Protein backbone atom coordinates (compact mmCIF):
# COMPACT_ATOMS: atom_id res chain seq x y z
CA UNK A 1 0.00 0.00 0.00
CA UNK A 2 3.01 2.27 -0.16
CA UNK A 3 3.57 2.07 -3.89
CA UNK A 4 1.68 4.07 -6.41
CA UNK A 5 2.76 1.97 -9.37
CA UNK A 6 1.03 -1.23 -8.23
CA UNK A 7 -2.59 -0.34 -8.66
CA UNK A 8 -3.91 -3.83 -7.97
CA UNK A 9 -6.14 -4.05 -4.85
CA UNK A 10 -4.82 -7.54 -4.05
CA UNK A 11 -1.36 -6.09 -3.43
CA UNK A 12 -2.79 -3.90 -0.69
CA UNK A 13 -4.53 -6.61 1.31
CA UNK A 14 -5.01 -7.19 4.13
CA UNK A 15 -5.86 -3.65 5.17
CA UNK A 16 -5.31 -2.48 8.71
CA UNK A 17 -8.56 -1.88 10.59
CA UNK A 18 -8.17 1.93 10.53
CA UNK A 19 -7.62 1.98 6.76
CA UNK A 20 -10.54 -0.39 6.13
CA UNK A 21 -12.93 1.67 8.23
CA UNK A 22 -11.72 4.97 6.82
CA UNK A 23 -12.45 3.64 3.33
CA UNK A 24 -15.90 2.54 4.47
CA UNK A 25 -16.48 6.00 5.95
CA UNK A 26 -15.75 7.51 2.55
CA UNK A 27 -17.99 5.09 0.66
CA UNK A 28 -20.40 7.17 -1.38
CA UNK A 29 -19.69 10.35 0.56
CA UNK A 30 -16.80 12.73 0.98
CA UNK A 31 -15.91 13.71 4.52
CA UNK A 32 -13.47 15.86 6.45
CA UNK A 33 -11.16 14.42 9.11
CA UNK A 34 -13.48 14.81 12.05
CA UNK A 35 -16.38 13.40 9.99
CA UNK A 36 -14.29 10.32 9.18
CA UNK A 37 -13.40 9.92 12.84
CA UNK A 38 -17.07 10.11 13.87
CA UNK A 39 -18.20 7.69 11.19
CA UNK A 40 -15.52 5.14 12.07
CA UNK A 41 -16.64 5.32 15.71
CA UNK A 42 -20.25 4.75 14.57
CA UNK A 43 -19.30 1.81 12.34
CA UNK A 44 -17.48 0.06 15.18
CA UNK A 45 -19.75 1.01 18.10
CA UNK A 46 -16.92 3.18 19.48
CA UNK A 47 -14.53 0.21 19.51
CA UNK A 48 -12.17 2.01 17.13
CA UNK A 49 -11.42 5.57 18.25
CA UNK A 50 -8.97 7.13 15.81
CA UNK A 51 -6.66 9.75 17.27
CA UNK A 52 -5.60 12.59 14.96
CA UNK A 53 -2.14 11.10 14.48
CA UNK A 54 -3.49 7.68 13.49
CA UNK A 55 -6.11 9.24 11.23
CA UNK A 56 -3.78 11.52 9.34
CA UNK A 57 -0.96 8.96 9.21
CA UNK A 58 -3.42 6.63 7.44
CA UNK A 59 -4.74 9.40 5.19
CA UNK A 60 -1.19 10.25 4.16
CA UNK A 61 -0.43 6.67 3.13
CA UNK A 62 -3.82 6.25 1.47
CA UNK A 63 -3.26 9.41 -0.55
CA UNK A 64 0.17 8.12 -1.58
CA UNK A 65 -1.29 4.72 -2.56
CA UNK A 66 -3.98 6.37 -4.66
CA UNK A 67 -6.89 5.00 -2.62
CA UNK A 68 -8.32 8.41 -1.85
CA UNK A 69 -7.87 11.98 -2.97
CA UNK A 70 -8.30 15.41 -1.50
CA UNK A 71 -11.48 17.21 -2.34
CA UNK A 72 -12.19 20.91 -1.86
CA UNK A 73 -11.82 22.89 1.34
CA UNK A 74 -15.06 24.24 2.73
CA UNK A 75 -16.78 24.83 6.06
CA UNK A 76 -19.06 22.20 7.54
CA UNK A 77 -22.40 23.85 8.34
CA UNK A 78 -23.00 21.35 11.14
CA UNK A 79 -19.85 22.42 13.00
CA UNK A 80 -18.64 26.00 12.56
CA UNK A 81 -17.43 28.32 9.85
CA UNK A 82 -13.88 26.97 9.76
CA UNK A 83 -12.77 25.70 6.38
CA UNK A 84 -12.08 21.95 6.42
CA UNK A 85 -10.32 19.73 3.93
CA UNK A 86 -12.61 17.01 2.55
CA UNK A 87 -11.43 13.61 1.30
CA UNK A 88 -13.09 11.31 -1.22
CA UNK A 89 -12.54 7.75 -2.34
CA UNK A 90 -10.96 6.95 -5.71
CA UNK A 91 -11.94 3.94 -7.85
CA UNK A 92 -8.88 2.02 -6.63
CA UNK A 93 -10.02 2.65 -3.06
CA UNK A 94 -13.46 1.30 -3.81
CA UNK A 95 -12.09 -1.84 -5.46
CA UNK A 96 -9.72 -2.31 -2.55
CA UNK A 97 -12.35 -1.99 0.17
CA UNK A 98 -14.57 -4.43 -1.74
CA UNK A 99 -11.69 -6.90 -2.05
CA UNK A 100 -10.95 -6.54 1.68
CA UNK A 101 -14.61 -7.16 2.57
CA UNK A 102 -14.48 -10.25 0.34
CA UNK A 103 -11.36 -11.44 2.11
CA UNK A 104 -12.96 -10.93 5.51
CA UNK A 105 -16.10 -12.75 4.36
CA UNK A 106 -14.00 -15.69 3.23
CA UNK A 107 -12.15 -15.70 6.53
CA UNK A 108 -15.47 -15.58 8.37
CA UNK A 109 -16.84 -18.48 6.32
CA UNK A 110 -13.77 -20.50 7.21
CA UNK A 111 -14.31 -19.75 10.90
CA UNK A 112 -17.96 -20.70 10.65
CA UNK A 113 -17.14 -24.01 9.00
CA UNK A 114 -15.04 -24.82 12.04
CA UNK A 115 -17.82 -23.67 14.37
CA UNK A 116 -15.65 -20.85 15.61
CA UNK A 117 -18.17 -18.13 14.86
CA UNK A 118 -21.58 -18.00 16.50
CA UNK A 119 -22.70 -14.36 16.50
CA UNK A 120 -23.50 -11.97 13.69
CA UNK A 121 -26.77 -13.60 12.54
CA UNK A 122 -28.96 -11.33 10.45
Amino acid sequence: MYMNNHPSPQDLLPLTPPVFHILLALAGEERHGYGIMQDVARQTNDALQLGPGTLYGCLKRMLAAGLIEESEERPDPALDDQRRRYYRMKPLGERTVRAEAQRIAAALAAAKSKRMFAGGKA
Partner: protein
Amino acid sequence: MKSEPDQFRWVGLLCRVYAIALWAYPRAFRAQFGGEMQQVFRERCRAVARAHDLANLFRFLALSVKDWLTTSFRERFGHNAGIKASLSAVARHPATIWMLAIFICFFASTTMVRAYVISAGSMEGTLRVGDHVLADRLHSKARDIQRGDMITFLYPEDTGQTYVKRVIGLPGDRIRLSGKQVIRNGHRLEEPYAQHVASSTDPYRDNFPVEAPSYISARGREMLARHVKNGEAIVPSDSFFVLGDNRDISSDSRYWGFVPRENVIGKPLIVFWSYDAPTDELVGWNRTYLADLAQHFFTKTRWARTLLVLRSQPAQEIQP
Protein backbone atom coordinates in the same frame (compact mmCIF):
# COMPACT_ATOMS: atom_id res chain seq x y z
CA MET B 1 -23.09 28.53 11.13
CA LYS B 2 -22.05 28.73 14.72
CA SER B 3 -18.73 29.90 15.98
CA GLU B 4 -19.29 30.60 19.67
CA PRO B 5 -16.28 30.62 21.95
CA ASP B 6 -15.72 27.43 23.89
CA GLN B 7 -17.53 27.56 27.17
CA PHE B 8 -14.85 25.37 28.74
CA ARG B 9 -11.59 27.18 29.09
CA TRP B 10 -9.57 23.97 29.31
CA VAL B 11 -10.55 23.13 25.75
CA GLY B 12 -8.54 26.10 24.52
CA LEU B 13 -5.66 25.20 26.80
CA LEU B 14 -5.60 21.57 25.65
CA CYS B 15 -5.65 22.70 22.03
CA ARG B 16 -2.64 24.97 22.61
CA VAL B 17 -0.80 22.09 24.27
CA TYR B 18 -1.67 19.89 21.31
CA ALA B 19 -0.40 22.54 18.89
CA ILE B 20 2.96 22.40 20.66
CA ALA B 21 2.92 18.59 20.76
CA LEU B 22 2.58 18.59 16.98
CA TRP B 23 6.26 19.52 16.76
CA ALA B 24 7.04 15.88 17.45
CA TYR B 25 5.89 15.08 13.92
CA PRO B 26 8.21 15.56 10.94
CA ARG B 27 8.10 18.98 9.35
CA ALA B 28 6.51 17.86 6.08
CA PHE B 29 3.80 15.89 7.84
CA ARG B 30 3.08 18.86 10.10
CA ALA B 31 2.92 21.23 7.15
CA GLN B 32 0.45 19.02 5.30
CA PHE B 33 -1.83 17.87 8.10
CA GLY B 34 -1.03 19.93 11.22
CA GLY B 35 -3.88 22.39 10.81
CA GLU B 36 -6.42 19.65 10.13
CA MET B 37 -5.17 17.61 13.07
CA GLN B 38 -5.72 20.60 15.34
CA GLN B 39 -9.25 21.02 13.98
CA VAL B 40 -10.03 17.36 14.58
CA PHE B 41 -8.54 17.50 18.04
CA ARG B 42 -10.59 20.59 18.91
CA GLU B 43 -13.82 18.92 17.77
CA ARG B 44 -13.03 15.85 19.85
CA CYS B 45 -12.34 18.07 22.87
CA ARG B 46 -15.64 19.86 22.42
CA ALA B 47 -17.51 16.58 22.11
CA VAL B 48 -15.88 15.32 25.30
CA ALA B 49 -16.65 18.60 27.07
CA ARG B 50 -20.31 18.42 26.07
CA ALA B 51 -20.55 14.89 27.46
CA HIS B 52 -19.71 16.10 31.00
CA ASP B 53 -18.20 12.76 31.86
CA LEU B 54 -14.94 12.74 33.76
CA ALA B 55 -14.12 9.09 33.01
CA ASN B 56 -14.67 9.83 29.36
CA LEU B 57 -12.33 12.80 29.61
CA PHE B 58 -9.55 10.67 31.08
CA ARG B 59 -10.06 8.02 28.45
CA PHE B 60 -9.82 10.68 25.80
CA LEU B 61 -6.61 12.13 27.30
CA ALA B 62 -5.00 8.69 27.57
CA LEU B 63 -5.96 7.88 24.00
CA SER B 64 -4.60 11.20 22.75
CA VAL B 65 -1.24 10.73 24.45
CA LYS B 66 -0.93 7.18 23.13
CA ASP B 67 -1.93 8.29 19.64
CA TRP B 68 0.57 11.13 19.75
CA LEU B 69 3.47 8.99 20.97
CA THR B 70 2.95 6.07 18.60
CA THR B 71 2.16 8.00 15.46
CA SER B 72 4.83 10.65 15.89
CA PHE B 73 7.38 7.84 16.18
CA ARG B 74 5.90 6.08 13.17
CA GLU B 75 5.92 9.19 11.02
CA ARG B 76 9.51 9.88 11.94
CA PHE B 77 10.92 6.41 11.57
CA GLY B 78 8.47 4.35 9.57
CA HIS B 79 6.73 1.07 10.38
CA ASN B 80 9.52 -1.31 9.72
CA ALA B 81 12.62 0.49 10.81
CA GLY B 82 15.11 -1.83 12.49
CA ILE B 83 15.81 -1.77 16.19
CA LYS B 84 18.95 0.27 15.69
CA ALA B 85 17.14 2.85 13.61
CA SER B 86 14.29 3.04 16.07
CA LEU B 87 16.71 3.48 18.95
CA SER B 88 18.49 6.34 17.25
CA ALA B 89 15.07 7.64 16.35
CA VAL B 90 14.04 7.49 19.98
CA ALA B 91 17.17 9.36 20.91
CA ARG B 92 16.40 12.15 18.45
CA HIS B 93 12.72 12.33 19.26
CA PRO B 94 11.80 15.69 20.84
CA ALA B 95 9.96 13.94 23.66
CA THR B 96 13.16 12.11 24.60
CA ILE B 97 15.16 15.29 24.52
CA TRP B 98 12.68 17.02 26.78
CA MET B 99 12.64 14.16 29.22
CA LEU B 100 16.42 14.11 29.25
CA ALA B 101 16.51 17.85 29.88
CA ILE B 102 14.07 17.51 32.77
CA PHE B 103 16.08 14.59 34.13
CA ILE B 104 19.25 16.68 34.04
CA CYS B 105 17.52 19.58 35.77
CA PHE B 106 16.23 17.44 38.59
CA PHE B 107 18.95 14.92 39.26
CA ALA B 108 22.22 15.63 37.55
CA SER B 109 22.31 19.33 38.35
CA THR B 110 23.03 19.02 42.03
CA THR B 111 26.16 16.98 41.42
CA MET B 112 27.47 18.69 38.31
CA VAL B 113 26.63 22.35 38.68
CA ARG B 114 25.27 24.59 41.37
CA ALA B 115 23.62 27.96 41.29
CA TYR B 116 24.87 30.79 43.47
CA VAL B 117 23.86 34.38 43.91
CA ILE B 118 26.60 36.96 44.29
CA SER B 119 25.86 38.81 47.52
CA ALA B 120 29.03 40.88 47.99
CA GLY B 121 30.93 43.27 45.77
CA SER B 122 34.45 41.91 46.10
CA MET B 123 34.47 40.70 42.49
CA GLU B 124 32.67 43.81 41.19
CA GLY B 125 33.90 44.62 37.74
CA THR B 126 33.56 40.96 36.82
CA LEU B 127 30.69 39.71 38.98
CA ARG B 128 28.07 42.09 40.30
CA VAL B 129 25.86 41.83 43.34
CA GLY B 130 22.66 40.18 42.15
CA ASP B 131 24.35 38.04 39.51
CA HIS B 132 22.98 34.51 39.61
CA VAL B 133 25.84 32.26 38.65
CA LEU B 134 26.08 28.62 37.66
CA ALA B 135 29.31 27.07 38.84
CA ASP B 136 30.51 23.58 38.09
CA ARG B 137 31.43 21.23 40.88
CA LEU B 138 33.86 19.15 38.91
CA HIS B 139 37.04 20.79 40.10
CA SER B 140 36.94 19.40 43.60
CA LYS B 141 40.24 17.71 42.82
CA ALA B 142 41.41 21.10 41.59
CA ARG B 143 43.90 19.61 39.14
CA ASP B 144 43.49 21.98 36.23
CA ILE B 145 43.31 25.30 37.99
CA GLN B 146 45.35 27.99 36.23
CA ARG B 147 46.45 31.45 37.22
CA GLY B 148 43.67 33.87 36.31
CA ASP B 149 40.84 31.37 36.81
CA MET B 150 37.93 32.29 39.01
CA ILE B 151 37.17 29.60 41.55
CA THR B 152 34.37 28.94 43.99
CA PHE B 153 35.54 27.56 47.30
CA LEU B 154 34.55 27.11 50.93
CA TYR B 155 35.73 30.14 52.89
CA PRO B 156 38.53 28.77 55.09
CA GLU B 157 37.48 30.85 58.11
CA ASP B 158 33.86 29.63 57.88
CA THR B 159 33.20 26.68 55.60
CA GLY B 160 29.48 27.41 55.72
CA GLN B 161 30.08 30.18 53.18
CA THR B 162 31.05 29.84 49.55
CA TYR B 163 33.35 32.49 48.13
CA VAL B 164 34.35 33.29 44.59
CA LYS B 165 37.77 34.89 43.91
CA ARG B 166 40.44 34.89 41.25
CA VAL B 167 43.50 32.65 41.50
CA ILE B 168 46.65 34.77 41.49
CA GLY B 169 49.18 32.31 42.83
CA LEU B 170 49.66 28.57 42.31
CA PRO B 171 51.79 26.42 44.63
CA GLY B 172 55.39 27.68 44.55
CA ASP B 173 54.53 31.15 43.23
CA ARG B 174 56.05 34.16 45.00
CA ILE B 175 53.50 36.95 45.50
CA ARG B 176 53.76 40.53 46.68
CA LEU B 177 51.90 43.78 46.23
CA SER B 178 53.61 47.12 45.95
CA GLY B 179 51.42 50.24 45.69
CA LYS B 180 48.39 48.20 44.55
CA GLN B 181 50.53 46.47 41.90
CA VAL B 182 50.68 42.69 42.07
CA ILE B 183 54.14 41.26 41.48
CA ARG B 184 54.30 37.51 40.87
CA ASN B 185 57.64 35.72 40.70
CA GLY B 186 59.27 39.09 40.11
CA HIS B 187 57.01 40.09 37.20
CA ARG B 188 54.50 42.91 37.40
CA LEU B 189 51.02 41.73 36.43
CA GLU B 190 48.84 43.64 34.02
CA GLU B 191 45.39 42.72 35.21
CA PRO B 192 42.56 43.86 32.93
CA TYR B 193 39.96 42.44 35.31
CA ALA B 194 41.15 44.25 38.44
CA GLN B 195 39.55 47.48 39.55
CA HIS B 196 40.52 49.98 42.21
CA VAL B 197 37.91 52.18 43.81
CA ALA B 198 39.93 53.78 46.62
CA SER B 199 42.10 56.75 45.74
CA SER B 200 44.08 56.48 48.97
CA THR B 201 46.52 53.70 49.66
CA ASP B 202 46.42 51.41 52.64
CA PRO B 203 49.75 50.35 54.12
CA TYR B 204 48.73 46.71 54.41
CA ARG B 205 46.13 46.19 51.67
CA ASP B 206 48.22 47.76 48.95
CA ASN B 207 51.66 46.73 50.11
CA PHE B 208 51.76 43.07 50.93
CA PRO B 209 53.15 41.29 52.85
CA VAL B 210 54.12 43.63 55.65
CA GLU B 211 53.72 43.67 59.41
CA ALA B 212 50.19 42.46 60.26
CA PRO B 213 47.76 45.09 61.53
CA SER B 214 45.52 44.13 64.44
CA TYR B 215 42.53 43.15 62.30
CA ILE B 216 44.29 40.30 60.52
CA SER B 217 42.89 36.91 61.54
CA ALA B 218 44.90 34.10 63.11
CA ARG B 219 44.99 32.30 59.78
CA GLY B 220 46.34 35.41 58.10
CA ARG B 221 48.98 35.82 60.76
CA GLU B 222 50.04 32.21 60.34
CA MET B 223 50.57 32.82 56.61
CA LEU B 224 52.63 35.93 57.33
CA ALA B 225 54.67 34.09 59.95
CA ARG B 226 55.36 30.87 58.06
CA HIS B 227 55.19 31.56 54.33
CA VAL B 228 56.84 34.93 53.86
CA LYS B 229 60.40 35.03 52.67
CA ASN B 230 62.32 38.07 51.45
CA GLY B 231 59.16 40.20 51.45
CA GLU B 232 57.19 37.75 49.33
CA ALA B 233 54.44 35.31 50.24
CA ILE B 234 55.30 31.86 48.88
CA VAL B 235 52.28 29.71 48.07
CA PRO B 236 52.61 26.33 49.81
CA SER B 237 51.77 23.05 48.08
CA ASP B 238 48.08 22.21 47.68
CA SER B 239 47.08 25.83 48.20
CA PHE B 240 46.09 28.86 46.14
CA PHE B 241 46.57 32.57 46.67
CA VAL B 242 43.36 34.36 45.67
CA LEU B 243 42.39 38.03 45.31
CA GLY B 244 39.08 39.72 44.55
CA ASP B 245 38.84 41.74 41.35
CA ASN B 246 37.46 44.70 43.29
CA ARG B 247 40.88 44.90 44.84
CA ASP B 248 40.37 47.70 47.37
CA ILE B 249 37.35 46.28 49.17
CA SER B 250 37.99 42.56 48.81
CA SER B 251 38.45 40.21 51.74
CA ASP B 252 40.89 37.70 50.30
CA SER B 253 44.15 35.82 50.81
CA ARG B 254 45.84 38.98 52.03
CA TYR B 255 43.63 38.90 55.11
CA TRP B 256 42.93 35.25 55.81
CA GLY B 257 45.61 33.29 54.03
CA PHE B 258 45.73 30.66 51.31
CA VAL B 259 42.82 28.55 50.03
CA PRO B 260 43.56 24.86 50.66
CA ARG B 261 43.03 22.64 47.62
CA GLU B 262 40.33 20.62 49.39
CA ASN B 263 38.22 23.77 49.85
CA VAL B 264 37.93 24.36 46.11
CA ILE B 265 34.49 23.49 44.68
CA GLY B 266 34.68 24.52 41.06
CA LYS B 267 34.65 27.39 38.61
CA PRO B 268 31.82 29.83 37.87
CA LEU B 269 30.65 29.21 34.30
CA ILE B 270 27.86 31.55 33.40
CA VAL B 271 25.69 34.35 34.76
CA PHE B 272 22.27 32.90 33.98
CA TRP B 273 20.32 35.81 35.43
CA SER B 274 21.26 39.13 36.97
CA TYR B 275 18.86 41.01 39.18
CA ASP B 276 19.45 44.47 40.55
CA ALA B 277 18.42 44.20 44.20
CA PRO B 278 19.95 45.17 47.55
CA THR B 279 22.29 42.54 48.95
CA ASP B 280 20.38 41.61 52.08
CA GLU B 281 17.22 40.96 50.12
CA LEU B 282 18.90 38.54 47.76
CA VAL B 283 19.71 36.07 50.48
CA GLY B 284 16.76 33.77 51.06
CA TRP B 285 13.34 34.04 49.57
CA ASN B 286 11.78 36.55 51.93
CA ARG B 287 8.54 38.31 51.21
CA THR B 288 9.99 41.74 50.35
CA TYR B 289 12.23 40.14 47.77
CA LEU B 290 9.42 38.17 46.19
CA ALA B 291 7.18 41.23 46.07
CA ASP B 292 10.00 43.24 44.53
CA LEU B 293 10.64 40.46 42.03
CA ALA B 294 7.01 40.23 40.99
CA GLN B 295 6.84 43.98 40.46
CA HIS B 296 10.18 44.70 38.86
CA PHE B 297 11.31 41.50 37.16
CA PHE B 298 11.55 43.08 33.73
CA THR B 299 12.93 46.46 34.74
CA LYS B 300 15.42 45.27 37.36
CA THR B 301 16.78 42.32 35.46
CA ARG B 302 20.13 43.29 33.97
CA TRP B 303 19.48 41.85 30.55
CA ALA B 304 22.99 42.65 29.31
CA ARG B 305 24.47 40.44 32.02
CA THR B 306 21.98 37.62 31.63
CA LEU B 307 23.50 34.55 29.99
CA LEU B 308 26.99 36.01 30.21
CA VAL B 309 29.67 33.37 29.87
CA LEU B 310 32.52 33.75 32.35
CA ARG B 311 36.00 33.07 31.04
CA SER B 312 39.38 32.74 32.61
CA GLN B 313 41.47 35.89 32.18
CA PRO B 314 45.17 35.28 32.51
CA ALA B 315 47.11 38.37 33.49
CA GLN B 316 49.96 39.64 31.31
CA GLU B 317 53.30 39.22 33.05
CA ILE B 318 55.53 42.22 32.43
CA GLN B 319 59.28 41.71 32.52
CA PRO B 320 60.99 43.93 35.10
